[in-house]
């Protein structure tokens, strides 16, 4: 297994020496900063009493994080397109393919490398609400649940993007296609309002729905398992894809 970590370390380094990751983080932080500010102003102008059911952590943390899901949906494909599609185009994917390393190790290594970017995003997203600790009582459990949900969702988005990236040699196609796939998964949430079993099924499959509970501070193992299964499924599909390409 140490080879996975070696790959992950180099992948992480490659993400963070490229201007793309920093640009993405900067834009992300600016947009979410504005949203955060708007939420605070709104909260300050309409103060809710202590008996209100919506607290500061809920309103600001929850509001910020649910907006973040949409932005992350737009951003993840930009990072995942590099993983395989761009490398295939540059010809440097061969380095890993010709090394004494299995495909599973390659995919896991790349995914863990991507996780370093997810971790950086989560840190930035944690910092904003935590600033409010200075003048208020935050429900840290809720914030933590929201952050856990966000990281799980980003892992799922990243795994799906990684799979799409393994299908093509054009980074732009990889980005557009994974954006399409993620948006579809997101749209299922809208369709889940349909009556009957279809609505139920779509509601279960929708990628955002499982985040809702965590955002509200409800830690349910179903949601955790959903994201983990989703991630493992797409990573496994990527391994199969790389294997079929060799043949």
């Amino acid at each position: 297994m140490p080879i996975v970590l070696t790959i992950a370390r180099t992948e992480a380094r490659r993400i963070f020496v490229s201007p793309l990751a920093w640009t993405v983080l900067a834009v992300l932080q600016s947009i979410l900063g504005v949203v955060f500010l708007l939420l605070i102003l709104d909260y300050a102008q309409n103060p809710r009493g202590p008996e209100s059911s919506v607290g500061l952590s809920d309103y600001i943390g929850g509001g910020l994080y649910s907006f973040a899901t949409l932005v992350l949906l737009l951003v993840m494909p930009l990072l995942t397109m590099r993983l395989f599609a761009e490398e295939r185009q540059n010809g440097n994917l061969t380095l890993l393919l010709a090394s004494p390393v299995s495909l599973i190790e390659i995919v896991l290594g790349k995914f863990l490398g991507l996780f370093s970017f997810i971790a950086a995003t989560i840190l930035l997203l944690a910092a904003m609400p935590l600033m409010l600790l200075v003048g208020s009582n935050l429900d840290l459990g809720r914030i933590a649940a929201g952050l856990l949900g966000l990281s799980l969702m980003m892992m799922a988005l990243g795994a799906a993007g990684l799979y799409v990236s393994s299908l093509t040699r054009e980074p732009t196609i990889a980005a557009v296609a994974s954006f399409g796939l993620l948006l579809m998964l997101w749209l299922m949430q809208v369709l889940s309002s349909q009556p009957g079993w279809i609505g139920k099924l779509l509601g279960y499959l929708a990628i955002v729905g499982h985040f809702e509970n965590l955002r509200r501070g409800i830690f349910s193992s179903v949601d955790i398992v959903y994201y983990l299964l989703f991630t493992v499924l797409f990573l496994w599909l990527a391994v199969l894809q790389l294997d079929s390409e060799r043949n």
Partner: protein
Amino acid sequence: MAHEFLIEARGLSRRYGSHTAASDISLSLRKGEILGLLGPNGAGKSTTMKMLAGVLAPSAGTVMINGVSLADDPKRAKQSLGYLPELPPVYPELTVDEYLRYCASLHGLRRSERAAALQRAKQSCGLSEVSRRLIGNLSKGYQQRVGIAQAIIHRPAVVILDEPTVGLDPIQILEIRRLIKALGQEHGVILSSHILPEIQAVCARVMIIHRGRLVYAEPLATAGSEGFKTIIAGFLRMPAFDVLLSLPGVGEIETLAGSQIRITVNNAGDDPRAAIAEAAAAHGWGLIELHAERRTLEEIFVELSTGDAHTLEEAA
């Protein structure tokens, strides 16, 4: 681990849909041997090398690397392999040192061995002065050298180089040739090229691939050393053919452009050159050129690759 052959490939074929990129290619490589794969562009050299390097699975056939099957135990087989693909597989955003250190650990070199391996590879490929530069900022020639360094850093038993001197300047080409020759002493090297002199300069054995098939496989020494059938002679004044024809060994005479003639000898062992020179001196023909026409690798190459081009034209 003493196996007679470092690489033993049998019946390698690769199809892409209905297109056959390589068919029934068998080759073997011993320790200390440099094998050249020669062929026009698109002949199937790269496909063959990809299959040998385990990047592409063959549609049929087997590859054994150092006695280990590439299909059954790819990890162990690939440990004895160093491969430079057509495009050097470098990461432009890393420095030369970072990249080569990564390659060393990918091939399972222990931390303690890495520094020495890095130093050695950089020295062999002339990269010492650019260690801390970003690969993306290096010239094409330097990137190619980084690619070669990557292939040899772990001292593999077999080194596969796909067109290693593309994009290099003449001095670098000489350096790389020297490097390949040095590698060929301890390792087995397979290199491909569509440039003849390159193969002639370094390889002991050559295989010509054309349209996905192996059409010629001989030690390089045999090309050119075999007997000759024709002699080219040049004169200032056209000689009398009847005098020439009376010389022993002379078969037919054909006039060529200028005042050259081509003389076909009667039997393979005949050598009428001395007699022709004497006759020319006696009759005052002004002999200015006299040499046996040997089949050089180039002629074999051109013959083999244009032979098929004719059938292609006929088919069209």
